[in-house]
């Protein structure tokens, strides 16, 4: 008989992502029994808590530890297996791997019970990836804006022109040199700061 509620262990160095996933799993009625960052004592935690499922960052150095535990041996009364061994739908596996999710489950759990948890993990990992990218691109945009502003100020100061003229100068230079305005601005700043 399978227990009604599966217990899940999360192993992730990205604490925010792990929190996001923990909340989401709890909302879906799953019990997260332990949340860990990379740990040399992972094996000990797994043996002590005996989770039904372990969700671990694809890039965690601790994955080889779990691979060892997955090798059937007399020391492991409850062998765990890499989820792909059971879930034979290649699309699911590819989705998980692209999102950076890997999972180990207790032998004998049916794919039907594992899939909803995996789906939540994949969705949260994706969401986190997008948040990261948005943050990175908004930071880049801000930095680029600041570069342009600084180049304009320097032009106004050195050439006594208006802001509109400074902007036109930058735009013309960018078009002539077939470069981005931020690149022209960067060159200008390094030049004018020497003057």
């Amino acid at each position, binding site marked *: 008989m399978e227990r009604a509620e599966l217990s899940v262990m999360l192993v992730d160095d990205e604490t925010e992502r792990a929190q996001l996933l923990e909340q989401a799993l709890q909302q879906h009625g799953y019990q997260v029994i332990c949340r860990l960052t*990379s740990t*040399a*004592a992972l*094996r000990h935690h797994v043996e002590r808590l005996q989770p039904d499922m372990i969700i671990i960052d*694809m*890039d*965690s*150095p*601790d*994955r*080889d*530890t*779990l*691979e*060892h*535990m*997955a*090798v*059937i*041996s007399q*020391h492991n009364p409850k062998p765990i*297996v*890499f989820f*792909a*061994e059971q879930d*034979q739908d290649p699309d699911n*596996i*590819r989705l998980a*791997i*692209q999102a950076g999710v*890997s999972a180990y489950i207790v032998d004998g759990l049916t794919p039907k019970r594992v899939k909803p948890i995996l789906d939540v993990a994949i969705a949260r990992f994706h969401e986190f990836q997008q948040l990261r990218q948005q943050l990175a691109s908004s930071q880049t945009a801000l930095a680029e804006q600041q570069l342009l502003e600084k180049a304009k100020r320097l032009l106004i100061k050195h050439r006594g022109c208006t802001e509109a003229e400074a902007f036109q100068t930058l735009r013309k230079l960018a078009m002539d040199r077939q470069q981005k305005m931020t690149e022209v601005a960067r060159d200008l700043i390094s030049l004018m700061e020497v003057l």
Partner: protein
Amino acid sequence: MTARYQAEKTNLILGFVPLLDAAPLIVAKELGYFSAQGLTVQLQAERSWASIRDKVAWGLLDGAQMLAPLPLASTLGLGSSAIPMVTGLVLSQGGNAISLSEALCQQLDLPPSLTGLTPAELGARLRQHLQQSNRQLTLATVSPYSCHHYQLHYWLQLSGIEPRQVNVIGLAPADMASQLDGGRIDGFCVGEPWNSLSQQQGSSRILLSSEQLWPHCPEKVFAVTADFASKQPQTHLALITALLQACQWLATPEAASGLTALLAQPAYLPDLLQQMPAGPLLNPAIPQAFFGDELNFPWCSQAAWLQQQMRQLGQWQGPIDPQLLRQIYRTDLYRQAAAALQLTAPASDWRLEGQQAPGFAGGEIFSIRNNASY
């Protein structure tokens, strides 16, 4: 004399694990052997062998440095879904060692120099200690489908140490020293530079090298999926050729002086090299080689030997199938790449393993005829 292949795919991402034997990939990129073949290669560091296997299997990496048994394990579906993989090139030989904690070494009362002591003699001391103290040892390796893992078990068996006396667990190499210091493990079998680093820190002592156990065993190979190899055959050959050239360079005097600087670049293994003891990069106590007619050749007989280890440890219950091994360890591809570089290659895919001196530490001769099931 660079070979000209009509590469089907020229932008590639290859994976490696930051170890000294990632050298052929790094050299092929940094010295321009990939670009001479018209390939633009990005090297991506990975933190576990499981990750290397999965990313190659599902196309996130085009190819990678792999543990020699891993293409076979993946093809057989050991520990993951069965994804057929192939290798046409052995990248390195040796470089592994078995280290025991300083505390355990003191209990074993080892002489200051271990030179001249055979693996069996060293193992006998450990066996006696275990019998007297009636304790269980915990030893670590990295991947269960690695030569480290098989070599450790081979040595324990050679030493007459019973499986119940030793618990073999998996650990990331970076965690080994701290686990030794904390007394949670008694030793390990890993690749360089981890044995030298741990010894330098005073945590452990190098007991014996893989060269003393299995002198002719492939350690790392270059692997791709069988799908990649069949859809991009020219690209695959171009990669093998460039990597073989890199291996060739690694045997030259320039490599002895120039390799450290290449590996120390930020994208590769700078942190590890900073901690390394002064002196030669490759520890002479742990022989490691990258080039040789017979060394780079993916012997089917070596693959059979590895599959035999999988059987002995209960990882694989089926037969050793020579036809299957031939599809994974692609001697034909090696021969083409070697010919392009005007290098010779062995004519046969099989040899009697253990016959070339020095042989296996246990003295056995391994023949596919006696072990294959057709």
